[in-house]
């Protein structure tokens, strides 16, 4: 009814597909790992290992689905913003806001179904290939591996429902569209309404403060007992939830700060303004990446911390800590890959958001071209916007990750045999390198399509009366 265009929804479908494929594949891998473990003589029949594997798998699936639904909600909100005129026109001819919103939610449901099912196919294929290759190369024995266990329905329905829900959340803006906006008399809305979030902000601040106190307590308890890590985890989850919830308090200042570093050329200045133009939208766009970077950094820093403590402890008691290095390295690699997947989903959201915001700014970009912005300056502006979003997310995520990683290592191992007590956070150099490279690649990748789109805009569109 509003012109359901597949093209608009490709990013959402992609995000849903990625989340679903990730969940399906991860569960299939853990199920088959359990079969493998059960067949093993030594560890066989250990229910505990299977249970822990399942828990870990679910934690990562929840993270991926969560990031995915933030991205989808954001994409839908942006799509709605671009459809304001059409929606207003429908309102003028007598369509209710509620039914308009239902239309959007139905699109969300369709996107969810398509994404969930293609994710099932893709994820199963990935697992099958992985197992086939592993069996062929003799890495694992040939057993009766299974793929379509009922458990894979969980991520499928999870993705379907969260996508649907996210589209409903993202379509809230439909209700604020006034029929007047179809007449062209209304001035282009320049600021999204930031009001009405005072309650949410208060909850966010309380959660963050409370969580940080508990996290600190965990570190202190960790000096005498490894149980400190349990307190630390609780504090970490609370404070991080507070941060995610209060993203619109944290990200705009970070974006502004990074924007200042971009320089004073006209394209950089405009880019700096654009990135904080809709504080909520940019907070939602960046928070997914912040979550990814935080988690990866946290694991890397925690592991480096472990390593350092272990090294010191080993010097004191060599026999206890034999062979632990390899285990730590494998753990951090596996975890980074699993979390990296959420970061990938967040990156899709970022590319998409930048693309849509270029589409929605057609007239403004045309105006800049008419006033003397060269195509090159316009491209530089879009790239600077992209850099600003990426750098701000990476910096915030990196800082948080170091803090959480340090607290994790400290609270878990502060009391172990031969431990030095309090240590400084250890930031592995390779992590810095990876973060810089990923940020650079993402900045360029996220801006290629939007920049090309922007330079195709002719200045005449700015003069056109729509």
């Amino acid at each position, binding site marked *: 009814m509003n012109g359901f265009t597949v093209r608009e929804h490709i990013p959402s479908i992609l995000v849903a597909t990625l989340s679903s494929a990730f969940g399906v594949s991860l569960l299939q891998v853990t199920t088959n790992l359990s079969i493998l473990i059960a067949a093993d003589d030594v560890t066989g029949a250990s229910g505990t290992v299977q249970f822990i594997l399942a828990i870990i798998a679910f934690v990562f699936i929840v993270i991926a689905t969560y990031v995915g639904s933030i991205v989808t909600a954001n994409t839908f909100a942006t799509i709605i913003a671009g459809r304001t005129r059409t929606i207003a026109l429908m309102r003028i001819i007598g369509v209710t806001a509620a039914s308009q919103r239902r239309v959007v939610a139905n699109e969300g449901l369709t996107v969810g179904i398509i994404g969930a099912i293609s994710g099932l196919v893709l994820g199963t294929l990935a697992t099958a290939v992985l197992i086939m290759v592993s069996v062929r190369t003799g890495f694992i024995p040939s057993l009766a591996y299974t793929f379509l266990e009922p458990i894979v329905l969980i991520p499928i329905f999870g993705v379907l429902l969260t996508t649907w829900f996210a589209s409903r959340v993202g379509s809230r803006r439909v209700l604020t569209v006034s029929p007047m906006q179809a007449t062209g008399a209304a*001035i*282009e*809305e*320049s*600021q999204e309404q930031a009001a009405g979030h005072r309650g949410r902000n208060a909850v966010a601040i309380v959660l963050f403060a409370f969580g940080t106190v508990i996290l600190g307590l965990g570190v202190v308890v960790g000096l005498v007992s490894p149980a400190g890590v349990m307190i630390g985890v609780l504090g970490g989850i609370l404070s991080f939830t507070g941060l995610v919830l209060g993203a619109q308090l944290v990200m705009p200042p970070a974006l502004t700060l990074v924007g200042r570093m971009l320089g004073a*050329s*006209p394209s950089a*200045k*405009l880019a700096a*303004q*654009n990135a904080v*133009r809709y504080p909520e939208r940019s907070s939602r766009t960046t928070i997914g990446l912040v979550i990814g970077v935080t988690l990866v950094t946290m694991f890397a820093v925690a592991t480096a911390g472990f390593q350092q403590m272990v090294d010191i402890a080993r010097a004191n008691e060599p026999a206890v800590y034999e062979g632990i290095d390899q285990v730590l390295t494998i753990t951090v690699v596996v975890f980074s890959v699993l979390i990296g997947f959420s970061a990938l989903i967040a990156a899709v959201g970022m590319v998409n958001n930048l693309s849509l915001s270029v589409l929605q700014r057609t*007239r*403004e970009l045309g*105006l*800049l*071209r*008419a*006033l*003397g*912005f*060269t*195509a*090159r*300056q316009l491209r530089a502006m879009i790239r600077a916007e992209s850099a600003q979003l990426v750098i701000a997310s990476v910096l915030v995520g990196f800082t948080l990750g170091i803090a959480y990683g340090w607290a994790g290592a400290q609270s878990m191992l502060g009391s172990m045999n031969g431990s030095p007590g309090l240590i400084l956070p250890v930031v592995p150099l390779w992590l810095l390198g990876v973060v810089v490279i990923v940020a650079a690649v993402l900045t360029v990748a996220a801006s290629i399509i939007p920049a090309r789109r922007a330079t195709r805009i*002719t*200045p*005449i569109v*700015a*003069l056109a*009366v729509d």
Partner: protein
Amino acid sequence: MEITSEDPGLVARVAGLTKSYGSGSTAVTALDNVSVGIRKSEFTAIMGPSGSGKSTLMHIMAGLDSVTSGRVWIGSTDITGLDDTELTMIRRRRVGFVFQSFNLVPTLDIRGNIMLPFELDGRSPSDDDRRWIDELVASLGLAPRMSHRPHELSGGQQQRVAIARALGSRPDLVFADEPTGNLDSRTSREVLSLLATASSSYGQSIAMVTHDPIAASYADRIIFLADGKVIEDRGRSTASDISQYMLGMEQVA
């Protein structure tokens, strides 16, 4: 009006200009062999009904659109074959724009919008430029608004900011595309007086596209277009004379 050689009194001109869209049987000719010049320090109105080609003529003169055949000059520069970047430089340095709506960059405050042409060119305004801009801002009554955002201003105020921006860098020629199209009649009169004053007092050359006889009555010269051709070129006229003429055009057509 025949334009053959360079004429120092013309700030922009086109010769043998034809513009058509599409090809074959679906081709539409927006401008058909038009030759016309805009005189220096004059306020020129380009009038005509919808589809007469007046907007296309302005787009081409301003270096925004390409020609099918013919030549276009800004001052003594032939801009017909220039590439996108060269045309951008012409727009940046020698041309100013006032549009019907959506004139301002929403993320910049009023000062930022007015100074944008200087920013884009990477030069800071000279003392002389500053004096001129201060004078403009004062005479347009924008002084208390300088740190506001465009959405905090009324339509008329926004249009005045656009005028300040267009006049600020003292371009060779200011193009105004239906500058009063979105304004009420009182605000329209203010905006038109401003444009007329800029031309009469400061010698600013202005070309305004309009279909409103009252708007055109503020101009020193009126060029009428119909079906892609210049059909009349006359000096200052009253709104009622212009209306009469346009009604006559309709009846002939």
